[in-house]
Structures are given as structure tokens and as C-alpha cells.
């Protein structure tokens, strides 16, 4: 058993070394920083009960993040269970081996550091609690990593059925909605930071956090400090039993997975190729039909539509819990923004199927346009329908021109941006014909998704400005004028960015195909397929790299939560201060601070972008010089020159 585990760990390390690239490094740094933050909780000047509460909360969050990490982070990377389908290894041994392999990696490493806070916390309370803390650290860490493998496997299995896919879609929608508006609900708690530090979580939440398995470790340490060793032992034994049960379950899942293929749902009925007969018999019509069929039949794409729809719906509904109806009219716009963010990796999702587009004369243009139109046919009615229904339900008649123009503007903006991103920043997962688990469809796209959320929202600014001007001057006509403005900006963005994307696809299609084909396959070091950006990055002096990392790392802070968010709140006239610095200032300083924050954010984005641009230009110049040098000195040229 030990040999297998050791071998798998070594394999895992090798694949990760080959895949150690920019985005992963970035998230590793973020993860380590957060882990150190978690450790720092131990040194807070607060009572034991409070610290236990805080650690319980933080480690629950860590478990969640680690458990969902592989789903968001391109779980197809590295070692996959089907690699061992032909080896005579009993499922439980394979599960243990794969768990070992899953433990090595940047995410789990940061997790271990965070969970080590249990041990550190224990030793601050005495030797006994310290020992309990060490055991708890290891068990909680194992639990989190094991959960991650299980979630990834279970979601993949669930996605084989339509009902399962709907449920997974709902879960993701709930998660994103909670992340975006959940803080309205917990805001009262956050605002009372002082109270939190003296009294801990509200009693109900506190007991819940300790009762969940994610809190058993911290409960064990706490009980040891009280001398309640029975509780300590029970909590730790509970963790061991839970891990054993989950491990057995995962082994079973691996067996089932080895036998199945990611086929999704079978076709029910209908005339063969009906959609191709209904849409116009043109290249564009063909692409639209292909896309619409893919959106409905590919489990991952179908999931993306549902995630966007559920996120929108729940973002509107969750605030109703505290009686706040004002977000309801914006459900449609949220659907658009989410729909854009989840669709920005379309070319990578289809992987090497791109070859057919490349080998068909003139098809690149039709493919980009067809994808845009299919996306609009799908998300347009969904978003506009949601806007109309929920605005009517909310009774906010003032909101009509606002939400209609925002929805229309972002629809066009998203349709343009998504193909632009899909062509320029593809993040491939496992190539479609090799996929076993639909959750392996995409590579890691966190950065792209965040950028899309921001940029798609930004495309609404012109229409928003017109509506606000109309509101300020109390002119209904001006407010409604935002609708044609939205149609214009949306149309221009969809057309223009689509054109840029199509041009690029036409020019560099083979390069895109190479990139997609390599996909999640890790590359051997030294392969000269590294992008010019990667080489330019390596050539940058360490100081400049630090500046780039720092600027990109913190730019979002002034830009979003301290700039655009209070901007929206102030414009909407909402009296929510939260942690928006500007809104705590006297009225006359609020606008300058908000605008200053936005400007600061933009500058912080612009500085590293400029550095990278320059670096890439320098790298290109060096490449050209090197190529010329080589050309001049090639033996063939010398011979020809001698003639």
C-alpha cells in the first residue's frame, strides 16, 4: 500500500512541476497569505471561547474552499483515476493512493498551514491540548482534501443525469449568490467586529460551527483545554470514522467511474438533425444550430446556463429574507453578467474540435458570429424575461428604463467580450473526446471570470449615465433614451469585439489549436511552446515582477469594493455603509474619495499592464534578433552565399 501511495505522490509532484504556471503561482501566494492570516487568529487578544469560535469559522471556510477548489481550478489537471483503470488495484487502495497524491500541491499545502492553527492554538493552551491540536490538524486537513476529491467525483457522477445537473447548478447559483449578496445578511455581524471579538459568534452560529464535522477539530482542542478529554477523544474519533467512511465511499465511486463514460444524457426523440433543417441553410445558421445543440446537450455548458440563471434569481431573492426588494429588478442583468463570465472559455470547452473550423474556408468568421448569436438566443430571452417579470413583481416602476437599458447594454457587451476572451485567453481542460468527468471540461478560469464580471458590468456605463442624468433632471424621456443608447453600445461592442476575435482566429487559428490540444496535458520543461508572455515574464527583473504582482494583487480593492460598489450604492441612494470607506466620510468628501479610489484602481491595473506590454515588446525584439542571427549563420545560407 505504501509503495502505491508513494508512487502516486511522486507522479503527482511530477505533473504539478510541469504545470507550475502563472495563475497557479498567483493563487498559491494568495492561499499562503490567507493561511498565515488564519494562523494569526491564534494570537488575537481575545478569550478562549471567542478564539475557538473564530478558528471554527475560519477553518470551516477553509474546508469549503479546499473542497470546492478542484471544481473551479480545473480538476482535470494531474493524475486521474481512469489512468489506473487497467491496473489490478483494489478500489480502497487506489483511493488511499490517490488521496496521498491529492495531498501534495499548492492548495493542500496552504490548507495544512491554515489547519496547523489548531496545533498552535492547542499549545498556547497547554501540552495536552497541543497534542490534541496536532492530531486535529492532520485529521481536518485529510478531511478537507478527501472532501475535495469526493465533491469533484460526485458532481461528475451527478452530472450524468439531468436531475443531478440541475441540482449542481442550483448549488453553484446559491454559492455565488451568497458570495455576492450574502453579506447583506451577515452585515450586522460584521459591523459589530468589536462585539465579535469580545463575545464570539451569535450562540446559534457558534454551536452550529462546533457541531459540524469541520468544527470537531477545534472542539477537541477546546475540550482538552477544559480537561474534558472524553469530548476530545470523541471528536477526534468521529473525524477518523468520518474519514474512513468517506474514503470507502470514494473508492466505490472510483470503481463506478472507471466503468462509465462521460456521455451525458441520451437523446430522447425528435426527427434527426431537426434544428439544422429549421435554421437558415447558411454557414451562420449551421454554427448557430451546432452551438444551440451543444448548449443543451453538453453537461458542462448546460450547467453554466443554470448557474447563471440560479445566481441571478437568488441574488434577487436572498435579500428578500431581510425584506429588501430593490435588487429584484436587477436579476436579469445579473444573469447576463454571470452568463458572460461562464461563457468566456468557449473555445477551450470545445477543445481540438477547432480543427474543423480551421479547415473550412471562411469558417472562422461564421464560427465567432454564430457563437455570439446562439449565446444571445439563449441568454437574451432568459435575461429580458427575468428583467420584465421581476421588475413587475418588485413594483418598482421607476426602475423600468434603468433595468431594461442595463440588461440590453450588458447583453451586447457580454456577447462581444465572451468571444474576445474565448479566442484570446483559452484555458483548456481535458479534450472533449477524452473527458470522463464533465467537471474536467474547463481549465482554471478564475482570473478570466473575475475580469469578465467587471468588464461586462462596465459596458453598462454609458446607458447608466443617461438614465442617471434623466433621473437627476426628472425627465422620463431622457431616462427612456437610455434604451436606444444601450442598443447602440451593446450592438457596437458585440459587433466590434466579435470582429476582433474573428480576425485573430483567422490569423492565429493553428496556434490556438496547438494550445487547445496541449490542454491539461502538462508540458515537459524547456519546451519552446512557452508563450511570448511567459518568456517575457521570466526575463523581467525580480523587482518589476514584484511590482506587477503587487499591483494586480491589490488593484481590485480600491476598484471594486471601495470604488464601484459604493458608487452604485450612492447612485441607488441606499443607506448601506458596510466597509465602504467613502460612505463613512462627510458628504462633500464622498464623491472625490469614490472617484479617487476608482482612479487608483485603474492606475494600479495600468502600471503592471504597461510593464508587461513593454516586456513583451522587448521579448519580441529579442526573438526577432535571435531569429535573424540564426538565419544569417545557417550552413545553407553560407553555401548559397558562396555561389
Amino acid at each position, binding site marked *: 500500500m505504501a509503495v502505491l501511495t508513494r508512487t502516486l505522490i511522486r507522479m503527482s509532484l511530477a505533473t504539478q512541476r510541469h504545470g507550475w504556471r502563472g495563475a497557479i503561482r498567483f493563487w498559491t501566494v494568495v492561499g499562503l497569505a490567507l493561511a498565515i492570516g488564519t494562523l494569526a487568529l491564534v494570537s488575537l487578544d481575545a478569550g478562549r471561547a471567542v478564539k475557538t469560535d473564530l478558528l471554527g469559522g475560519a477553518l470551516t471556510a477553509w474546508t469549503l474552499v479546499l473542497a470546492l477548489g478542484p471544481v473551479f481550478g480545473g480538476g482535470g489537471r494531474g493524475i486521474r483515476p481512469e489512468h489506473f483503470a487497467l491496473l489490478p488495484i483494489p478500489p480502497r487502495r487506489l483511493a488511499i493512493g490517490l488521496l496521498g497524491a491529492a495531498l501534495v500541491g499548492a492548495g493542500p499545502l496552504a490548507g495544512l498551514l491554515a489547519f496547523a492553527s489548531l496545533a498552535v492554538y492547542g499549545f498556547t493552551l497547554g501540552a495536552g491540548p497541543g497534542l490534541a491540536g496536532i492530531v486535529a490538524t492532520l485529521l481536518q486537513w485529510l478531511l478537507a482534501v478527501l472532501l475535495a476529491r469526493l465533491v469533484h467525483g460526485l458532481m461528475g457522477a451527478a452530472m450524468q443525469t439531468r436531475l443531478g445537473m440541475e441540482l449542481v447548478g442550483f448549488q453553484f447559483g446559491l454559492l455565488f449568490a451568497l458570495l455576492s449578496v450574502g453579506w447583506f445578511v451577515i452585515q450586522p455581524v460584521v459591523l459589530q467586529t468589536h462585539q465579535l471579538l469580545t463575545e464570539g459568534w451569535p450562540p446559534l452560529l457558534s454551536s452550529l460551527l462546533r457541531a459540524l464535522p469541520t468544527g470537531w477539530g477545534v472542539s477537541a482542542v477546546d475540550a482538552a483545554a477544559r480537561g474534558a478529554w472524553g469530548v476530545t477523544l470523541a471528536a477526534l474519533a468521529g473525524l477518523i470514522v468520518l474519514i474512513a467512511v468517506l474514503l470507502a465511499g470514494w473508492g466505490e465511486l472510483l470503481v463506478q467511474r472507471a466503468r462509465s*463514460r462521460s*456521455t451525458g444524457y441520451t437523446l430522447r426523440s425528435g426527427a434527426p438533425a431537426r434544428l439544422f433543417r429549421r435554421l437558415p*441553410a447558411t454557414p451562420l445558421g449551421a454554427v448557430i444550430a451546432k452551438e444551440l445543440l451543444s448548449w443543451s446537450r453538453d453537461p458542462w455548458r448546460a450547467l453554466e446556463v443554470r448557474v447563471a440563471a440560479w445566481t441571478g434569481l437568488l441574488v434577487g431573492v436572498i435579500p428578500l429574507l431581510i425584506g429588501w426588494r430593490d435588487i429584484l429588478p436587477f436579476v436579469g442583468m445579473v444573469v447576463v453578467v454571470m452568463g458572460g463570465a461562464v461563457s468566456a472559455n468557449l473555445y477551450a470547452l470545445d477543445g481540438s474540435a477547432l480543427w474543423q473550423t480551421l*479547415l*473550412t474556408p471562411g469558417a472562422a468568421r461564421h464560427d465567432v458570429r454564430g457563437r455570439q448569436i446562439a449565446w444571445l438566443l439563449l441568454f437574451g430571452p432568459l435575461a429580458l424575461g427575468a428583467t420584465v417579470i421581476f421588475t413587475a413583481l418588485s413594483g418598482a416602476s421607476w426602475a423600468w428604463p434603468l433595468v431594461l437599458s442595463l440588461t440590453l447594454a450588458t447583453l451586447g457587451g457580454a456577447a462581444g467580450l465572451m468571444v474576445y476572451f474565448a479566442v484570446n485567453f483559452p484555458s483548456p481542460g481535458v479534450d472533449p*473526446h477524452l473527458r470522463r468527468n464533465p467537471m474536467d471540461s474547463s481549465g482554471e478560469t478564475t482570473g478570466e471570470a473575475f475580469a469578465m464580471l467587471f468588464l461586462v458590468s462596465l459596458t453598462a456605463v454609458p446607458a447608466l449615465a443617461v438614465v442617471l442624468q434623466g433621473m437627476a433632471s426628472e425627465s422620463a424621456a431622457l431616462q427612456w433614451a437610455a434604451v436606444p443608447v444601450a442598443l447602440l453600445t451593446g450592438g457596437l461592442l458585440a459587433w466590434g469585439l466579435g470582429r476582433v476575435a474573428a480576425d485573430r482566429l483567422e490569423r492565429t487559428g493553428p*496556434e490556438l489549436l496547438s494550445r487547445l490540444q496541449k490542454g491539461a496535458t502538462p508540458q515537459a520543461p524547456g519546451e*519552446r*511552446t512557452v508563450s511570448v508572455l511567459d518568456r517575457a515574464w521570466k526575463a523581467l527583473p525580480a523587482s518589476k515582477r514584484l511590482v506587477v504582482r503587487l499591483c494586480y494583487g491589490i488593484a481590485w480593492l480600491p476598484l471594486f469594493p471601495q470604488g464601484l460598489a459604493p458608487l452604485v450604492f450612492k447612485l441607488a441612494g441606499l443607506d448601506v455603509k458596510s466597509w465602504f470607506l467613502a460612505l463613512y466620510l462627510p458628504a462633500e468628501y464622498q464623491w472625490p474619495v469614490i472617484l479617487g479610489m476608482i482612479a487608483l484602481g485603474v492606475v494600479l491595473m495600468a502600471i503592471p499592464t504597461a510593464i508587461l506590454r513593454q516586456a513583451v515588446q522587448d521579448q519580441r525584439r529579442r526573438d526577432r534578433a535571435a531569429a535573424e542571427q540564426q538565419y544569417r549563420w545557417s550552413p545553407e545560407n553560407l553555401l548559397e552565399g558562396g555561389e
Partner: protein
Amino acid sequence: MHSATPLPDEHATERAPALELIGLTKTFGPTVAVDHVNLTVPAGSFFGLVGPNGAGKTTALSMAVGLLRPDAGTARTFGVDVWGDPVRAKELLGVLPDGLSVPERLTGRELLMYLGLLRGMDRETVEARTQSLLEVLGLDTAERTLLIQYSAGMRKKIGLATAMLHNPRLLVLDEPFEAVDPVSAYTVRKILDQFVASGGSVIMSSHVMALVEQICDHVAIIASGRVLATGSLDEVRNGRDLEAAFIDLVGLHDSGEGLPWLS
């Protein structure tokens, strides 16, 4: 002095070889995958490209059809530069690559309809050709089967159908017979023979010597990214069978011992 790329007027196109690879080169890191490959596939020939695994067959064919940009050299099909005038070249080519995806969530019929319409063919032609291709290749019983559910052999067959759908003048086929059952292989051979007899040209890669020997009239042997021999089948065989010629040229990787423990 060499002349510039000839203009692809109709007349020149008629006389030109079906495919010319001129100094094609591709390097991946330290590995030279394809090393100044020159190859001529005469119009109307059934050309076999043979070589051991990793010889550079797939890389060379990918560059020849416009899927992989060469580091140096170019490819012409019927005189049309594949990288200089891709639109015209792609009308002449029908390609079956090895190991690539397709829009996996379509059925076979939908895939052919999609590609036919994407090529700008009219609906009636697409429907009629789709129907006959599916029937001939025995795929017309799989109307509810998505491509991702196809077996390896079915994937080859539908790939072949997509390559032939627009009636190209040259078929470029990467391992077309791999995983195809004997009955289907017989059908495919008949179709390809008929295609060549009616004036079409075929280049296919394979590592099954006997098959190449049976159906091809021209061959090239390629190893380590270089062309070791090329010409008509008889020229290359030179009195031996193709396998012997191949082993002479490539060299037998003989460890002598065999596998004594395998009993």
C-alpha cells in the same frame, strides 16, 4: 534561380502534383519532429506514408493541410500554397486527422449537416450526400447516438465521411484504418479505390505495411522526421516486400534477447 510560387490558374492546377511538401520543418523544443521534408504526391495517386511511431507522420500531415504552422518550408496542393492561399487550398483538401475532437454533442448526421452547410453547400446536396455517406459507412442506424458515444471505429468512419463530404480533390488521411473492423475496412477501401479511379488523389499514413502494399501505388518511408525513401511502390520495394525495405531503411531495433520471462 528558383521561381516564385506559381499562380494557381486552372491550367497549372490541372498539371500540378496533388501535394508537394517543400522543406517542411517543425521543432518542438530540442526535438526536431519534421526535418526538411520534401515529398511529392502525384495527382491521381494513392500514396502511403509509412514510418515507425513518432516518425513525424502526423506532424508533417498537420503542416501539409494547414493545422500546424511550419517553422520553415511550405506545402502546395495542386499548385496552391496551403499557407499562402488557405481558402483555395482548403476547398481542394479533405482531411481526417488522428485523435482530435469534433463537436462531440452532435449526432453523426448533425455533424455532416453542420459541416456541409458551413462550407456553403445547399441544403438538398448536403442532405443527399449525408444520407448516402451514412448508409455506405453503416452509420445510419445510430441516429440517437452522440459522437462522444461513438466507438473508435465509428469515429474513424464519421471522420472519413466529413473528409469526403465536399467532394475534395485530395484526401489526407491520418491512420484511416486504425480500429476499423474488417468489414468496414473493406468498404472504406472500396470507396477510396473508387475515388482514385475517378481522378481523386489520396495520401494516408499507416504503420501497417501489408495494407499499404496492397492498396497504395506510391509510398514514402519516413523516420525521425526525415524522408528515407519515396517513389512508386516498386521503386521503393526494389524487389523485396515493403516490410523488408522498411526494416532495411529504418534499421531493426533488435535487443536480441526477446522477452525470456514471457512464457
